[in-house]
């Protein structure tokens, strides 16, 4: 075992000497989490909302004030249809809530359809979010006002993420992307470098077994991955208040499975190429793009065409995001994890079999 340990030590030295790369793989997760948490957010704060109150009753005044007091909205009062039109067109407001004349009376008589919501849907995601906020606030208002009748036919309850913070969704996706990047790209590049410099032959001729060479290459990146996982979780919990409702042990266990899967990708890539550059190209274009786009991090998987949905299943990121969602946000019972976890294991086994086959073809 001593000769295996010294091999792993050598791998750590390689990483340590390459300070630039080390800095990138340590800082990248931090930057990404901050970026997704602060910038690429679809949650709303101080959205300008126009209110066109045609009723001017006590009731409508109270409703307006409840919006005024909310930190989500900055209220702009509008007084006629032209105002409404101009405000929306001129980007002064993102949405307009129209309260119809005689709304209070109609309400008391049990009629529905007393309000109208106009949304600027040029950014559909934001529009959709604003809609949900307004509906929530109005129904809360109706309840407080002691009105039994619902303003809206549908009552919405936001489970697990009541404020619809997008960082809740991004954290699992980011972990998927970052771990894929570090594990798959770095191992494939590191193995390709040994081939490029001719050190691979030296290693294979030495008493080290091929399996030891491969595992030795993986160990340092597994260690770095767990450092990254810890950093991402710490940032999301302490800076963005993302909850970890399920068990941390499970979270690390699943991350471990995913890391091994990503490493197998890197291993397969390295058996296909001879140079570091091509290894990097394949990892970036062939793995990073699909991982980012198809994992549900940016675009919801349900909105994709059927064939893309099926394609996304080939990449482990999708299943990892799903399991993480269960653990972090929902604390679901274990049997919910089994299916996505099963897929991750299946993908890992297939990748390892393919890689072993390629490795044999090359060196045997």
């Amino acid at each position, binding site marked *: 075992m001593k000769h295996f340990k*010294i091999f792993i030590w050598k791998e750590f030295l390689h990483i340590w000497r390459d300070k630039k790369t080390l800095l990138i793989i340590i800082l990248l997760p931090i930057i990404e989490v901050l970026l997704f948490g602060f910038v690429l957010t679809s949650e709303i704060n101080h959205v300008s909302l126009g209110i066109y109150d045609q009723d001017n009753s006590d009731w409508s005044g109270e409703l307006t004030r409840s919006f005024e007091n909310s930190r989500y909205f900055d209220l702009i009062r509008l007084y006629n249809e032209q105002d409404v039109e101009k405000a929306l067109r001129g980007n002064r407001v993102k949405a307009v809530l129209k309260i119809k004349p005689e709304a209070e009376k109609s309400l008391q008589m049990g009629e529905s359809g007393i309000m109208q919501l106009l949304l600027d849907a040029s950014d559909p995601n934001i529009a959709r979010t604003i809609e949900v906020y307004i509906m929530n606030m109005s129904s809360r208002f109706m309840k407080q006002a002691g009105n039994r009748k619902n303003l809206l036919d549908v009552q919405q309850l936001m489970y697990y993420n009541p404020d619809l913070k997008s960082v809740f969704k991004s954290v699992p996706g980011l972990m998927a992307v970052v771990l894929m990047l570090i594990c798959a790209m770095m191992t494939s590049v590191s193995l390709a470098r040994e081939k490029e410099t001719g050190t691979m*032959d030296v290693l294979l001729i030495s*008493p080290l077994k091929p399996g030891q060479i491969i595992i030795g290459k993986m160990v340092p990146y597994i260690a770095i991955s767990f450092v990254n996982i810890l950093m991402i979780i710490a940032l999301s919990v302490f800076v963005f208040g993302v909850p970890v409702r399920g068990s941390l042990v499970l979270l690390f266990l699943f991350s471990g499975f995913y890391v091994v899967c990503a490493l197998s990708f890197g291993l397969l890539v390295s058996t296909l190429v001879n140079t570091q550059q091509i290894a990097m190209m394949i990892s970036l274009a062939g793995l990073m793009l699909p991982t980012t786009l198809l994992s549900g991090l940016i675009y919801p998987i349900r909105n994709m065409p059927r064939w893309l949905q099926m394609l996304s299943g080939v990449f482990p990121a999708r299943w990892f995001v799903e399991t993480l969602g269960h653990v972090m946000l929902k604390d679901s019972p274990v049997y919910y994890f089994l299916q996505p976890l099963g897929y991750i294991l299946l993908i890992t086994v297939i990748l390892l079999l393919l890689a072993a086959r390629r490795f044999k073809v090359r060196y045997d």
Partner: protein
Amino acid sequence: MAEKIIETVNLTKRFGDFTAVDAISFEVNKGEIFGFLGANGAGKTTAMKMLCGLLLPTSGQATVAGYDVYRQSEKIKLNIGYMSQKFSLFSDLTVWENIEFYAGIYRMPRQAIITRGEKLLQDLELASQKRRLIGALPLGIRQKLAFSIAIIHEPRLVFLDEPTGGVDPITRRRFWEMIYNATERGITVFVTTHYMDEAEYCDRISMMVDGKIKGLDTPANLKLQFKEKSMFDVFLQLAREKSHEAL
């Protein structure tokens, strides 16, 4: 009779329809410098990889250091050293880290690594460069260091794959002095090269053409046999034969 360190009988390697190594049979005696010559693509590297336990032969027999290449490649690996032109140590590791790494993967005990490592550095006059990165050293020094490290575990046999490629003539001289020193310590040297002047330094030479051994003897005897004045002419004659066959 000298002790045999390598023995092959009809050793063959095919890749699909292509026969890279075609039924070669030869022996290497303990303690000699055995030159393995041939043009690029003649099958030298393939033959060497089979002997190192890196490739399985298609057919034929071979033993290296008394171990069978089919079944005992793990044993073979512990008894050989290897160095190639392409490889000159890990450039992002220091001199001493490279020494520790090689000695370590060949399972040398800690104390032996330190004593032999220090001795090696003194012999090469590199003791002051111990903590420098390999990448900062000139190629010639790297090659000499690579050779010393390749035999730090005192293997019974060392394979050198075009070890002096790209190195200046003076360093090549020094390099061959080091090879002679190694044989004095009882290490057998198996060397491939395409420098014909280097071929003259070998005890015996095998000339490979198209996967077959076309000549195997001492340099002096080969020159007699092919009626040529230098190894270079012997090589040219063999190469011409090949091109005539092709026509």
